[in-house]
């Protein structure tokens, strides 16, 4: 992954943005769901939690656009509120991954070959070796299933991803001349990491961030599907899928809409990630032109 030289403020940026199809589709899809999550704080067609048992399992109609679930709740509203959970869990998990992973990566690159580097790298391999879902299940078995535990479980497995990415790209920057001249200017490893290394790998972190964000949404859906994510009454897409499973032949709409919500959000984020990678990595951009 070549480290980009030109910064974001490079002229003609807007022209490239408009030309990159995947970035536009990605941004529109992601904005759709993030928007839905934000709007859900203010307005949803029906209250996502009030039940209306006699009105249960209605297929999509003019009143309930996505139909009703097995308790008579409005699926459209649940998806809007569910977006809140999925996006919040995935976003915070990526945040944890970055906040802890990036400094670790920078430190082990700065101290290349030392015991600290070895320790961090072995630590990373160890976390990678553990099966992610099993550890998530164990965490929730110990502390009880909840959205917070899902965040911790997914967050833990983001740390080594960012640590490894940061270390790799930071290592290649440490050999650059401008880092050597900073050392000649008497700057210490910490100052160089913050002033010179970090700003030049932000592009990579943004791209990887969107990818991990989409993986986070899938992971949260998986966890709440097996009942370990956000607990009722907080709606979550994964749990909506789990509830709909036994009714799949009776009320297919109950399974289709949450599934598509996850699919389109993850697709949007991945397209945005690809678009950003093309935009920010000059080597690819030149080749495309």
């Amino acid at each position, binding site marked *: 992954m070549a480290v980009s030289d030109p910064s974001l403020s490079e002229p003609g940026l807007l022209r490239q943005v408009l030309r990159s199809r995947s970035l536009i589709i990605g941004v529109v899809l992601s904005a759709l769901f993030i928007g839905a999550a934000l709007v859900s704080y203010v307005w949803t067609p029906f209250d996502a939690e009030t039940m209306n048992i006699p009105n*249960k399992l209605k297929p999509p109609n003019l009143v309930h656009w996505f139909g009703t679930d097995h*308790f008579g709740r409005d699926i459209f509203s649940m998806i809007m509120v569910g977006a809140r959970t999925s996006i919040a869990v995935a976003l915070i998990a990526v945040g944890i991954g970055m906040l802890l992973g990036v400094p670790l990566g920078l430190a082990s690159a700065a101290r290349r070959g030392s015991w600290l580097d070895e320790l961090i790298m072995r630590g990373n391999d160890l976390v990678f070796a553990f099966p992610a879902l099993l550890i998530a299940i164990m965490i929730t078995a110990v502390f*009880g299933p909840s959205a917070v535990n899902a965040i911790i479980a997914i967050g833990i497995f983001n740390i080594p991803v960012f640590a490894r990415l940061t270390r790799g790209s930071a290592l290649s920057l440490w050999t650059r001349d401008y880092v050597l001249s900073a050392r000649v200017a008497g700057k210490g490893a910490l100052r160089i990491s913050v002033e010179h290394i970090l700003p030049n790998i932000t592009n990579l972190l943004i791209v990887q961030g969107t990818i991990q964000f989409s993986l986070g949404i899938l992971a949260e859906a998986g966890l709440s599907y097996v009942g370990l994510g956000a*607990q009722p*009454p907080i709606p979550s897409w994964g749990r909506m899928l789990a509830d709909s499973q036994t009714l799949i032949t009776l009320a297919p709409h109950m399974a289709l809409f949450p599934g598509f919500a996850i699919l389109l959000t993850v697709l949007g984020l991945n397209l945005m990630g690809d678009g950003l990678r093309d935009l920010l990595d000059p080597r690819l951009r030149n080749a495309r032109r």
Partner: protein
Amino acid sequence: MTNMKTGYVIAAAVAIALTGGAAQAAKTDIVIGLQLEPPHLDPTGAAAGAIDQVVYSNVFEGLTRFASDGSIIPGLAKSWEISDDGLSYIFHLNEGVTFHDGSAMDAEDVKFSLDRARAEDSTNAQKALFADIASVEAMDLATVKVTLSKQNGSFLFNMAWGDAVIVAPESIADIKTKPIGTGPFVLSNWVQGDRIELAKNPDYWGSAISLDKATFKFISDPTAAFAAVMAEDVNAFMAFPAPENLPQFDADPRFKVLVGSTEGETILAINNKLPPFDNVKIREAVAHAIDRQAIIDGAMFGYGTPIGTHFAPHNPAYIDLTALSAYDPEKSKALLAEAGFADGFTTTLKLPPPSYARRGGEIIASQLKAVGITVEISNLEWAQWLEQVFRGKDFGLSIVSHTEPMDIGIYGREDYYFQYGKPEFQALMAELNATTDPAERTSILQAAQTMISEDYVNAYLFQLANTGVANAKIEGLWANAPTQAVDLTGVSWTD
């Protein structure tokens, strides 16, 4: 729905082509679907209901036995005499009964089984059933005399439990994996995690059975269960986990739905010692806030009968007290205000894994919220539920279905998790134990039912329905579930 039908027609043709169309001879083997796999096959060594489902009356037999309507009929004991003071029971055993390993079943084995269950270091889950036995003597090979330390009206009933089946000392060592009983079926194969296969016992002492082979297949996932039945991978599925699919099986000519009752009183348990629930007004307010029919329709898709007290409706002694705790949110709010909680309070609702609890919990949470009581739901696994709720008594509300038969006695135990144990109730229980006359027992039972209903000890929701699905051509499967058993002795194909 029409495209679904055409789908079947094409599918059937294709399926036949693929599987070579096995000819439909009079079948003598059956595949039963169950949700939970038994941890092992010794009914006297653990409480798991799944063990009884497989082995009760099929592999192991006790002195007495449950009939499909819940009554007690002779088992290995063909007849018995009870002394007037009700303290000594003499059982006359059937002759010529052998265990699957060929060894004879006689009074010595009965003495061994009962002594083993009531021993100091016994690991029998229902050890209390044997607590009243003082001594067991083998008068001769075919007669056993049991002397009780105090009168116990339900002793014969207790001997019918799965935990009281008769085992032999020669095969007790690895009974958990190689069960040696006296029943009409013998264990032939166990593929862990997938299925258990039973074969016909050629030299069974009792009346002949029509099945040669029975396979129990374990499918815990509700959708997979639905798919398995639809795809006819299994011939019947007992205690079907997803009541919402039953209408579809009903509408399909290939299947028939068996709806019966169980001994499972599903209650919203209230921690009587935890403020504010120690105030009866609060408990009454909770009871009135609950709409039972909405829960039955929402969680169980209509399968289940509302109950007003902790007693099985199909039992003759049952009285309908649902009116006492009818759905009346306004009254509930008034009661809350009276008790000084006008703007409500917050408590915990800890739910075990079964879907009646998880779905019922969501509905109850929203119903309680309507009257101002907000609950924090936490879904626990059985082990955690036992630890926190049952033993730790660290809960406000919980939902559980008590499937042990005739278990109203638990309201007399002080240390039981909802902590009632009112002295007057304990007196009633003592009196019940002392009487053997059926009419008297019924009046005592009814008094007990009324007391716990008026005290609003718990919010009694509904009796768990026994919902099974079977191939239309199968006869003899029990609709009711007086005990957690799948008795295959009377089952046959009607081709």
